[in-house]
C-alpha cells in the first residue's frame, strides 16, 4: 500500500512539473487559433508563421549572439580569475574570491537596474551590447566558481613539468592548464549559455530597439494568447534542453577523470 502511495506521489510530482511544459508544446501544434482544449492538430502552421515573422527571427538571432558572446566573455574572465587566485598568493585573496562570487546572491532585478542607471548615466545607449554586459555580470561568478573548484594539484604539477620542459607562461596556460580543465570550462560555458538564453529581466531593462527572444515573447503576450506563442516557447525550451544535455555529457566526462 505504502509503495503505491509513493509511486502515486512521484507521478503527481512529475505531472506538476511537466504538465505546463507538455501543454505548451502540445498546443504549439494546435490547428485552430486558440491554444486551449480541445486539441485539434497536429499542425505546423504556427511554426511556419513565427519563422516567417522577421521580428521573431531577428530576436532569435539576437538571443543566440548575446548568449554566445556573454558566455565566452564570462568563461574567459572566470578562467583567468580562477587561475590567478589558485596559483598566486595575493593579499586579500579570500576577500577577492568572495567578491567574485557575491553577485550570485544579488537578484537579477537589482543587477539590471544598477547597470541601467550606471550605463545610461555614463552615456551608453541601450543595445544588445549592454544586455551582453548584464549577462556577463550574472554569469562570471558561476563560471569562476565552477573553474576554480576544479583547479587542483594535478594541473599544478603538470604546469611545473611544462615549465621545466621550456614552456613560457602563455603556453603553460593554453597547452596544459586549459586543456586539462576543458570539461569544467565547457560546463561553465554551457551553463552560462542556458542562463543567458532565457534570461528576461536584465535583457528587458538593458535593450531598446534590438531585443532578445524572451523580451519579444513578452511583447507578443501583450496582444493576447495565440498558439504562435506556444511555438516560440517550445523553440526556446528545445534549445535550453539541448544545451543542458550537452552540459550533462561534459559533466559525465568530468566525473570519469
Amino acid at each position, binding site marked *: 500500500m505504502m509503495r503505491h502511495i509513493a509511486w502515486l506521489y512521484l507521478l503527481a510530482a512529475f505531472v506538476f512539473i511537466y504538465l505546463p511544459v507538455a501543454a505548451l508544446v502540445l498546443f504549439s501544434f494546435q490547428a485552430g487559433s486558440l491554444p486551449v482544449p480541445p486539441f485539434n492538430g497536429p499542425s505546423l502552421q504556427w511554426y511556419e508563421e513565427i519563422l516567417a515573422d522577421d521580428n521573431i527571427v531577428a530576436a532569435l538571432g539576437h538571443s543566440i549572439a548575446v548568449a554566445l558572446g556573454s558566455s565566452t566573455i564570462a568563461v574567459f574572465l572566470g578562467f583567468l580569475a580562477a587561475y590567478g587566485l589558485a596559483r598566486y598568493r595575493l593579499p586579500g585573496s579570500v576577500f577577492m574570491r568572495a567578491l567574485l562570487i557575491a553577485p550570485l546572491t544579488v537578484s537579477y532585478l537589482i543587477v539590471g537596474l544598477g547597470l541601467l542607471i550606471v550605463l545610461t548615466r555614463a552615456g551608453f545607449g541601450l543595445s544588445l551590447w549592454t544586455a551582453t554586459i548584464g549577462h556577463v555580470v550574472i554569469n562570471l561568478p558561476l563560471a569562476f566558481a565552477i573553474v576554480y573548484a576544479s583547479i587542483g594539484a594535478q594541473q599544478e604539477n*603538470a604546469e611545473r*613539468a611544462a615549465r*621545466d620542459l*621550456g614552456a613560457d607562461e602563455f603556453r603553460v596556460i593554453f597547452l596544459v592548464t586549459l586543456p586539462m580543465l576543458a570539461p569544467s570550462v565547457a560546463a561553465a560555458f554551457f551553463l552560462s549559455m542556458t542562463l543567458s538564453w532565457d534570461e528576461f529581466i536584465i535583457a528587458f531593462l538593458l535593450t531598446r530597439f534590438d531585443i532578445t527572444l524572451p523580451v519579444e515573447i513578452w511583447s507578443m503576450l501583450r496582444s493576447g494568447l495565440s498558439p504562435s506563442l506556444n511555438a516560440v516557447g517550445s523553440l526556446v525550451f528545445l534549445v535550453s534542453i539541448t544545451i543542458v544535455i550537452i552540459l550533462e555529457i561534459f559533466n559525465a566526462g568530468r566525473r570519469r577523470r
Partner: protein
Amino acid sequence: MTASVTIEGLSHWFEALRALSDIDLQIDAGEYVTLLGPSGCGKTTLLSVLGGFVEPTQGKVLIGGRDMTHVPPARRPTTTMFQDYALFPHMNLRENVAFGLRMAGTAKKQRNERAEAFLALVGLEGSAGKRPHQLSGGQRQRVALARALAVEPGVLLLDEPLGALDLKLRRSMQDELKDIQRKVGTTFIHVTHDQEEAMAIADRIVVMSAGRVEDEGDPLRIYSEPATLFAADFMGEMNHIPGTASDEGIETPFGALPLKSHRSGPVTVCIRPEALATAGAIPIGPSRLRDAAFVGTHYRVHLVPEAMPEAVLVAHLPPGSLPDAGKSLTLYADSGSFRVFAGKE
C-alpha cells in the same frame, strides 16, 4: 648531452627553517649521483634548487660551468622526472614525450621521430598513440623518463622516481635506469630515501641529514668507511658499542679493543652485523643467543652480550654454526671492520 654540476656555499631557509646549510658539492659530467637521506633532510629541496624551482637564499649553482643560480627552469639545461610523473593527461605518449622539443621549436615530423625513439629507449615502442591513463604506474614512469630525456638535457633530476612502485618493479627499474643512463651519458641526480636503491644504482652517494652533507663517495666506501655516525647508521644496520678512547686503545664493556683512535674521551664503536663471526682476531666476549631467523644466505641473529646485558647485538652468521637459543657463543671481529666515532649517542 651531459654537464657537470658545481654547488658552492649553498644555504636555503624556508622562513625560519634552515633547509640547506653550507652545501659544497662537485658532480662530474656523466656521473650517476644519488642524494640519500631520511625525509626532511633537504634532499628534495636541493634537487629543486638544481632544477630552478627554488631560488636559494645563499650560494651558487653552476651547471656545465655556467652560473644558473637565478635562471628559471625553462632556460636551464636540466629536466626533472617528477615523483608523481606529472604527465599531460590530455596528450598521447608521443605528444607527451615531444612536448619539450615542441617548446624548443623542433619541426613536427622530426620531434615525433625523436619522441618515438625515446619511447623505444624506455621499452614503450608501439604505444605512442596511447593516453597516460591507459598505462600502469611503471609504464607512466617510463614515459616521464622519456619525456625528460627527449630534450637531451645536460643533467636529469629524478625526484624519488621509484617511490610509488612495488618492491619487485623497483629493483628491476633500478637496473634499467642505470642502463639507460649509460646509454645516454647524461648526468643523473637521483633523490631517494632507500639506501639499497642508492647503493644499487649510484656511482656516488651523497648522504644528507638536517640540511647538511654527512658523507659523499662511492657506495662501497660509504658503507664500509662512513665518515659520520649518521652515515654509518643510514647505510645499513649497525651495532653500537659505547667506549672510551685513550692512547692504548678503546676501553669498552668487552674489555680494551686494540683499535687506533686519534680521539680521546667518549666514543661509539660501530660494527656491521656481517662483520661479526664466530672466529677472528678480536674477541668481543661471550654472548647469549636470543633468537635467530633464517633469511636465505645466512641467519640473522640477536645476541645479548654478557658484559652488556642491556644491549642487543645483531649478527649475520652462516648456517650450521649456531647453538640453540639461550646458549652462549663468543663473537669475534677483525680489526679493520670497526669504525670509531667521537661522542656517545
